[in-house]
């Protein structure tokens, strides 16, 4: 009872404080556009955010979700950079990989990820390479030295980029099969024994059949709660320039599932979104809803920190970009 009363009071106080400092930005309706089709991880998390973030925005706006799938969210990113209204009425959920899309693909050279206004992200955790227990590949050495198949979706997806990074950076002998429809599809092919493993997966992707898989190594620093510490693939790369390139690609793992606003969105609106996002990710009701999505645990990164990371990404020399391109070929 006491707890509930306290919570109510704190919400009211927060609301008042918020109303006072953010009077300039009253939100009427906010659309969260999702760069993927309905049903995937981005769609689900965005719909949960839509359910909660309105409480923390002045004017208590209605939040609607709209799917704009295409090119692994590249389509929506280009729309956000070009044609979406920059008045705080639209924010977008796009892949974190968009931050280096111009780096990896010269065809995207004309778009500037620094112009995106990053609001915040939900997940900050390492990714894995996994193999099936039946494949017998259970150590990083066997992983690098055996002939087998790794499954991936499209060539711009994390499942391909991280697999290619290991293959090219560490001269691994496996082959990468592209063209699967999604991670569930890859896992089914693994169960059929058609392929042996996959890379770039997060812990919540594999929560369903964790006990049939070997975790081989990680991308990015740190570990996931409840898992033993594994070797980081990029630590094995010897050439310092290639390693820098690999770290560049890994850095996006710090802001998985980000939300962005179009360039030109007024500063106070962006600030209001960032503050609201920061409050939302601490809200127990929000956390309870997100917790229903597999074993996803929120480990948010603030919009300011993401901007900093993206800025660092773009600040490296052109030779490192070149190395990064070669890594994910």
């Amino acid at each position, binding site marked *: 009872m006491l707890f509930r009363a306290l919570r109510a009071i704190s919400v009211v106080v927060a609301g008042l404080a918020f109303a006072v400092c953010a009077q300039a930005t009253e939100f009427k*309706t906010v*659309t969260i556009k999702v760069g993927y*089709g*309905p*049903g*995937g991880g981005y*769609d*689900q998390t965005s*719909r949960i955010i*839509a*359910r909660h973030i309105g409480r923390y925005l002045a004017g208590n706006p209605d939040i*609607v979700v*709209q*799917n*704009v*799938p*295409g*090119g692994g969210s*590249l*389509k929506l990113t*280009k*729309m956000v950079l070009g044609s979406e209204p920059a008045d705080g009425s639209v924010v977008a959920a796009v892949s974190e990989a968009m931050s280096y899309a111009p780096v990896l693909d010269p065809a995207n050279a004309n778009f500037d990820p620094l112009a995106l206004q990053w609001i915040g992200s939900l997940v900050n955790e390492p990714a894995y390479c996994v193999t099936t227990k039946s494949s017998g590949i259970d150590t990083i050495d066997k992983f690098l030295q055996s002939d087998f*198949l790794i499954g991936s979706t*499209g*060539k*711009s997806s994390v499942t391909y980029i991280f697999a290619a990074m290991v293959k090219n950076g560490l001269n691994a002998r496996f*082959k990468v*099969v*592209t*063209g*699967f*429809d*999604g991670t*569930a*599809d890859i*896992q*089914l*092919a693994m*169960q*059929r024994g*058609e*392929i042996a493993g996959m890379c770039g997966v997060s812990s919540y992707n594999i*929560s*369903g*059949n964790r006990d049939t898989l070997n975790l081989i190594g990680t991308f990015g620093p740190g570990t996931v709660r409840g898992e033993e510490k594994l070797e980081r693939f990029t630590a094995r790369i010897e050439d310092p320039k290639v390693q820098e390139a690999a770290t560049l690609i890994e850095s996006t793992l710090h802001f998985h599932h980000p939300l962005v606003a179009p360039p030109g969105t007024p500063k106070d609106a962006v600030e209001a979104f960032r503050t609201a996002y920061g409050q939302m990710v601490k809200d127990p009701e929000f956390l309870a*809803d997100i917790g*229903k*999505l*597999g074993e996803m645990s929120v480990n948010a990164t603030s919009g300011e920190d993401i901007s900093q990371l993206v800025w660092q990404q773009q600040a490296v020399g052109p030779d490192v970009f070149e190395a990064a391109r070669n890594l994910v070929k």
Partner: protein
Amino acid sequence: MDLILTAIVEMAQPFRMLMLVAGVFAGLVVGVVPGIGGLFAMALLIPMTYNMDAYSAFALLLGMGSVNTTSDTIPAILFGVPGSVGAAATVLDGHAMAKKGEAARAFGASYSASMIGGVFGALVLAAAIPVMQPLVLYLKTPDFFAICAFGLSIVAMLAGSQPLKGLAAAMFGMLASFVGIDQIAGIDRWTFGQIYLWDGLPVALVFLGLFGLPELASLLLRGSIQGNAEKPTYAGMWQGILDTLREWPLVLKCSTIGSLLGAVPGVGIAVLDWIAYGYASRRPGSGPKFGEGNVRGVIAPESANNAKEGGSLIPTIAFGVPGSASMSILLGAFVVHGLVPGPDMLGKNAALTMSMVFSIAVANIVGAVTCLVLTRPLARVAQVSAAILVPLVVTFIVVGAYQTNMSAFDFVLVIGIGAVGMAMKELNWPRSAFSLGFVLGPSLENYFFLAYQISGWSWLAQPLVLILLGLAVVGVVRQTLSWIRARNAGRPLPPALPDIIAGAAMTLLALAALVTAAIGFPFEAAIFPMITAGLLAVFSLVTTVQTTLRWRKRTPSAPLSATSPGTPGEWSPATQPTMKGNLGIIGLCLALAVLILLVGHLAATFIFVAGSIMVLGSKSWRSPLVIAAATTVFVYSVFDMLASQPWPEPWLAGIRQFL
């Protein structure tokens, strides 16, 4: 047995049954209105289920998902406009029946076939529960390729009275399906710098344009859907139900096709619909030709597409691999309710799995009975004047098309494809063959490359692959022999000169595609488009040459008679100045599209409906206004309240701001 009882007891709670029925009604509405499909509706409903228990949640979602293939036949039969992609095959014979005054019979047949198919699919799901895991694991990637190749061979059945044109149409459809970013190399093919085209041509939009607009043109000329003034009765409906019962072997076979293919990821209702239709067209039975109102052409796709729901749940439940697009959304609901697809669903959550079987079966029965009750008033629509119907249907096609991407390109595409569809209809290029090529192209290409990357060529020796590819070859060879035998049968043919122009244009298009693919795409992204374009060039060139020779010889064309014997086909010689109707429909669509962009969809609907009813010849001025107001309210309640998508700001509002 205990399991079934537990599931029934769980489902018998009033709230859960209420959710099931609510889902069914939502699903029926979603099915009737073109533009919002089950896919989208499911994404909207999922957040509503967060606070429900799992039984109620799946009752609501499956109730909705199971029946939109029941009600999507309503616009298909009445107007020739598929309510969802699953009803495109039903258009051909269903709408032809409505034109002959048999709308009630077509409804009776389609609903009863839907119901039996749906219940059959649920039973397949129930029967599959114990063997689900090994069953899904048994099928490997090459088998999926073989299934798609077998599906494509059905094109031979749909090729119509000029088989070369049929094959060309199928290749044309396949070529169209390759537009967009490819799965293998990740490059864009024929997108002309348009981000809009990255995800390819939207299926729903293609079917709306291809089937909906050409039928409207002939409706405009005829004056009403049904030529004669016979009043529809319940007798017609009962006749339709009896048709379905009499054709029970066909119903069971097509239900089997639907539920089995539904379980194959990548093979959606758009595909299995046509496969069932093509399968049925092999034996047209005693009725009229296929495409001219044969009731088997309604029963086959309708039983198949409702049976799909049960089938596509199999891989979803067993492995979390969605058997269809809407299943991938349903998967989201699994996660939200803490359910992990896999052994648990067959073990400790088996009662819930069984309740899904129950939900699908009950939803199909409730949905079909509801539609049957509505049959008589709906069949009366067949006698309403075209001056009122055409504006209404144009509104739903155009507003529905705009739902796809909320972009002006939606209008351009649906009208452009409509024009292509009109030409195909007039010149006997079967749209059914185009559709099958279009929906199978991407799966065929993708499964081929997956199979090749995984096992080189050795997969060609796998038993199931051999059987399926063998069956495909046998089917095509048999059909070819029958074409050769029927070669010299005197058949009515479309007018020569436009036919030659269209054939030549198609040949040029194919050559252009061939060259651009060869030069611009990397090998793995180019090979399928090149083979397709090459075949298209050959087929269309040969048919053009044939027509030219015939034209040079000035063979008098056979007397115009729609009942002449011949191979099944959807084409019959035109008896009216169709050009006028076609241009009229395109003009109406353009007018509405421009209005929507200028003043927004609600004001545009009102102005357009009232205006065009008056232009098309209404005697009073009151009724157009009343109809326009009612349509606007309906559009608002469906597209703004039910499906709350944000609409782009109309141009005029932008100008006001600017001033």
